[in-house]
């Protein structure tokens, strides 16, 4: 029996593909077919397929955004036969919460991430500052401006600017949480006309103008990663998984100079970090559920972590899913960022992302079908504010307008 698996093309997933011999020797009657695509295309591809019941895949890689929506539609099979040794309770509670509905797990996390501050210890020292473990936005702003030395090609801070719900809006939504802002109030009324959002966006735009890299409005995760690795950023607030790359001397010119801190806050009780997990789920339409579930159990189980550790070293183990991993001293030794990663993940709560109450689930997104389109539109507006083609006020006003329009149409606003 051949099962078809749709995966995203990041390094952990790719590594898994290389290690499947382990699975196929244990399950000689199951063959694996891989469809590897980049994130956006993958999402489009699997969503079309599952929504039209195309039945092309037996296992799909989905994120914490899709999981609750799809589960609610009944498109996913509950994962209740993962085996005795799977140890569901070992999964980090924040992650598990985002992937479950009514207490049933609908997607098994392959790796999880939050966001945090990665910074250059040498530059921080040069600026005469010390990074606290839990910095405030105020500190970040001050540090960034002090570190900036444009003639030497050093930007104080690199942040996402490229329009897109998973690009700048992931970052800005998480950031806004720490400023006390929210996307919607309890009646699904958009909140871009509130001072919290203005505060968020003002801070962001000013900071980037003063201390950000040129062309920031088209920088996404990858562009910033490259900048940071070349030593062009003093600080970078982004996904925790990046830590393993920037600290790897093979890939990074600054590997030995990177320090980590929690994402900043403003003292309101929420930090500006997100929560994401790439997870494996089984579409309800598959004919090969049993084999698929076997595979999911193998890929997300504890045994897989040991397998990677044995073959590629502890530093390459997919992070962010299991408590046991963070308790493993070998892992702690191999991954200096482990502690900070765990703290970041634990500090995010998808069900209560912001200071004020919200009607939705999701830290850096809103888990409703309309969010991708709306998020991207708002992202376009905010990137215009960053590029200086629009004022912050205009961007917010227009964002409010399109959000109201969209939510009214979708029937949230009665």
């Amino acid at each position, binding site marked *: 029996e051949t099962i078809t698996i749709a995966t995203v093309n*990041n390094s952990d997933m*790719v590594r898994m593909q290389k290690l499947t011999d382990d699975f196929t020797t244990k399950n000689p009657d199951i063959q694996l077919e*891989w469809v*590897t*695509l980049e*994130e956006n295309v993958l999402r489009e591809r699997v969503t079309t397929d599952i929504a039209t019941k195309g039945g092309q895949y037996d296992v799909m890689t989905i994120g914490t955004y899709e999981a609750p929506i799809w589960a609610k539609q009944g498109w996913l099979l509950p994962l209740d036969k993962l085996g005795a040794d799977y140890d569901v309770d070992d999964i980090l509670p924040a992650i598990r919460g985002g992937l479950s509905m009514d207490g049933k797990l609908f997607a098994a996390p392959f790796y999880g991430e939050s966001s945090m501050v990665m910074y250059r210890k040498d530059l921080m020292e040069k600026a005469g500052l010390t990074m606290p473990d839990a910095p405030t936005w105020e500190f970040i702003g001050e540090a960034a401006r002090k570190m900036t030395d444009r003639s030497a090609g050093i930007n104080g801070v690199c942040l996402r600017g490229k329009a897109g719900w998973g690009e700048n809006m992931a970052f800005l939504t998480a950031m806004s949480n720490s400023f006390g802002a929210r996307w919607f109030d309890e009646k699904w009324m958009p909140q871009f006309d509130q001072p919290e959002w203005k505060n968020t966006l003002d801070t962001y735009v000013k900071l980037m103008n003063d201390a950000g890299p040129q062309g920031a409005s088209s920088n996404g995760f*990858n562009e910033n990663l490259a900048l940071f690795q*070349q030593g062009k950023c003093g600080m970078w607030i982004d996904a925790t998984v990046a830590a393993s790359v920037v600290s790897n001397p093979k890939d990074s010119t600054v590997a030995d100079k990177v320090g980590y801190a929690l994402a900043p806050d403003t003292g309101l009780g929420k930090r500006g970090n997100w929560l994401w997990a790439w997870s494996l789920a089984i579409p309800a339409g598959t004919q090969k559920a049993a084999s698929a579930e076997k595979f999911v159990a193998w890929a997300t189980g504890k045994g897989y972590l040991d397998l990677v550790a044995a073959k590629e070293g502890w530093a390459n183990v997919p992070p962010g899913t299991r408590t046991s991993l963070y308790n493993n001293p070998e892992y702690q030794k191999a991954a200096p960022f482990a502690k900070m990663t765990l703290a970041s993940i634990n500090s995010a709560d998808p069900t209560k992302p912001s200071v004020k109450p919200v009607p939705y689930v999701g830290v850096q997104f809103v888990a409703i079908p309309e969010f991708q389109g709306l998020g991207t539109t708002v992202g376009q507006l905010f990137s215009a504010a960053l590029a200086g083609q629009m004022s912050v006020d205009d961007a917010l006003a227009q964002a409010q307008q399109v959000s109201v329009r969209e939510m009214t149409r979708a029937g949230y606003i009665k």
Partner: protein
Amino acid sequence: MARATSVRRTAAFTIAAWIIALVIFFPILYTIITSFKSETEAIQGFKLIPSGTFESYVEVQTQKDYFKPFMNSVILSVGSTLLALLISVPAAWSMAFSPTKKTKDILMWMLSTKMMPAVAVLVPIYLLFRDFGLLDSRIGLMVMLTLINLPIVVWMLYTYFREIPGEILEAARMDGASLWGEIVYVLTPMAVPGIASTMLLNIILAWNEAFWTIRLTTTNAAPLTAFIASFSSPQGLFWAKLSAASTLAIAPILIMGWFSQKQLVRGLTFGAVK
């Protein structure tokens, strides 16, 4: 114009042309250069001489098999092209040799079938493919690519056929050739340069079609466009790998194009030859 032009003139043109050609070719050249760099080298600013490592290629191959999507690309582009030729040669034949007042309108209408943005019909098409069991099938995709490129093929063949003297076809008719004999033994072989260049153009278009080939396939029918889609923007450094993958994806068509460059130039006249 067989006048010997002065060496200086030729030199000036040569220099100008080379500069322009290099500028235009530079992005491709740089991609190829980058594919021979290591990942860190790739992001370290402008550097024309790579360290000459093949590690990206090795990594690309271990990450994803190149051969199968390559074969799919070949099958899809060549297959859809042959299919398109099969149905458009007769059509172009009748438009070129038996034109009516409506011929121009039909040509324009054919082109207009390409006006619907692909994204708008993804779901309808996906539903159709699902219902006919064509998802991830080479046949389905081949038919699709055929239909997408058919208007262009008809246009090119039509303009090309118009340059063939009708008398030769009449001669065949007088010689007792049936319609089939006329097309197979006379028209097609005579139009070989035009058909060849149409084929080339169509193969290029089919090879590069990156919307449907990704959305309607999973594994069996996935061509190189899908191969490329698995290397663009993953998390982590990917420039060199992407360059290597891109080089692999465009190399076959580039090499084919280079070898057939003369054909392309000769055939793509669109009826401009007297």
